[in-house]
């Protein structure tokens, strides 16, 4: 099953490689991983998407918790939560294709953020499935480049993951 794990960790050089190293050393898979400092500059927040059966996920969370730099951890998949991913996608947009692409961007509530004679650069945010749907909706030969951040996640409700 797919799990999305939120990790609060010390914002220290090497912390990220400890997480990545743990996954490769123990043969767990990482689907995506995003990380950036939080409002408290001494802490980083990481969102990690992985797959595995119950036993593997239990080991993953225990092993992550064991890392000395991990402060707190939450398996978001255990409760209601929100996931968002951002995509930058560059597509060919010649005169004849422009209207069609523009319409598609509107339907998906994306933004065109750069324009040339021959291309659009589109920014799109949403659940991973929505981004997938957009990529599928654009004709394959029009796609020049796709950059995705991987999902960031947060639990619903008033409580936060903090110290």
């Amino acid at each position, binding site marked *: 099953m797919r799990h999305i794990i939120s990790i609060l960790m010390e914002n220290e050089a090497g912390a990220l*490689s400890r997480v990545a*190293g743990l996954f490769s050393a123990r043969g767990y898979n990482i689907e995506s991983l995003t990380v950036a400092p939080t409002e408290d500059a001494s802490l980083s927040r990481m969102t990690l998407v992985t797959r595995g059966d119950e*036993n593997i996920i*239990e080991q993953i969370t225990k092993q992550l918790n064991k890392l000395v730099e991990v402060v707190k951890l939450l398996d978001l998949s255990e409760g209601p939560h929100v996931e968002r991913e951002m995509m930058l996608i560059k597509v060919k947009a010649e005169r004849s294709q422009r209207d069609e692409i523009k319409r598609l961007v509107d339907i998906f509530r994306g933004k065109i953020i750069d324009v040339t004679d021959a291309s659009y650069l589109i920014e799109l945010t949403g659940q991973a499935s929505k981004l997938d749907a957009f990529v599928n909706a654009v004709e394959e030969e029009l796609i020049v480049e796709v950059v995705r951040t991987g999902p960031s996640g947060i639990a619903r409700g008033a409580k936060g993951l903090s110290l």
Partner: protein
Amino acid sequence: MELSGAEIVIQCLKDEGVEHVFGYPGGAVLHIYDALFQQDFVKHILVRHEQAATHAADGYARSTGKPGVALVTSGPGATNAVTGIATAYMDSIPMVVLTGQVPTPFIGSDAFQEVDTVGITRPCVKHNFLIKDVRDIAETMKKAFYIATSGRPGPVVVDIPKDITDPNKKIPYDYPKKIKMRSYSPVLRGHLGQIKKAVGLMLSAERPVFYTGGGVVLGDASEELRELTRELGFPITNTLMGLGSYPASDKQFIGMLGMHGTYEANMAMHDTDVLIAIGARFDDRVTGHIAHFCPNAKIIHVDIDPSSISKNVRVDVPIVGPVKSVLQDMLTVLKEGKKRPSSAALKKWWQQIDGWRGADCLSYDRTHAQIKPQFAIETLHKVTRGDAFVASDVGQHQMFAAQFYGFDKPRRWVNSGGLGTMGFGLPAAMGIQIAHPGADVALVTGEASVQMCIQELATCKQHDLPIKILLLNNGYMGMVRQWQEFFYDGRYSHSYVDALPDFVKLAESFGHVGMKVERPEDLEGAMQEAFDLKDRLVFMDVVIDPTENVYPMIEAGKGHHEMYLPPKSELV
């Protein structure tokens, strides 16, 4: 107090109460060595290879419970130390390894003797640090010792660039008294509800077994384990790492379990209805095939490390906490209640176990013309009155020592269980002897293993370490030969140790006493003579039967009930 970085490193060791450091100098640690030279609280033991520095620090730690400390230079010094770090990591041994590093401005430039020590050691340390500012040394050292010794212990590497230890840059020094880390806080007590549940389960058991491991030794919980086991009257088996935590000479002890465990221990594991695992981690050499592991048992598991629980085997009552306090709580709960285990059921269980004991699974041919390794270990036990510290290397001799020495006290048996590192024994014995100057320290080794760190005979000479080396010389990598005999139709591919040195002359050339023993009737006298030489290292080259195998044996991937027994055993 104003100190340089190098002086701070040494002062931190003093403030941690570290009296012995095992090390080897080099460019990146010269400032530290200079600071070391100018004081006499911290004593330095110069090894002959950095691998030995880490193994010696490890042996020191295993035999005392105090953290071992090693100091090595950057690059090759650090890479040589890696085997010892990994060895300590696999067996959860508290250790702090200080590695020199190239000066900070050079990091990442492929400078002379630069390696990414933090990167190389990351997967085999509990934690590691790269210090980038002289003002961080004291706090980092405090953290290093705290992390190494608390919770589930383990090795911590502190990588120190040369410029950080600059003797000309002095700063005020203050060693933190306490350290609190928001991201690291080991559990201090087990959950009382779970403990009560566990006690309830134990009391309802009809065929219970205690299965206890190295965690009991590391957690200094032998006293509590003895009390609980005796209170309940249950049989107890130890893992290779747990030997000594329960007295081998006690009647409730049914021997070691696992691949080379006793028939009675493994059969009891197979038939038990309540398994009480304490400070043990369900290693594959212990469980055999998981599908056949304790098929009828409810399992209680006490461990300080949550990730050990339900890792290999799902358990019914997990308890996360230090074994010592959990066992104390179990005793309290037990004593508060009136209920005791069913004596009728236990009596039946013991009858069954005594039946298995009748197989005499550790029997061997006592009439053989050559020295049998089992006999050599029994003789060692006799001559040292079962009271020596015994270090070992890896192979058949290790298993014979584990099976036949009969450890009655914790921290007396020092071996590399998790990583199985040949070459561990001699330097580990040095660490033990440094920590226990007057004690009998024996090294049980093989002619292949001992050659992997043989250079340490020089260290033993320089530091007057009167270790007694018992080389069980079978001319083979015996353990490899045994597998080849059993599983490769006797094709002994590269397991014959050709071109052996004359060990007697070798020992003598290092300034030690060498002895060669070939006949069973000479062994006890020779050993007695060796141990009577209180202040000399004696190297006993004991020529043993080269064909002997370790029994019982469970083939990798088989169940506990599928053991090979010695050829003469009644059950074969």
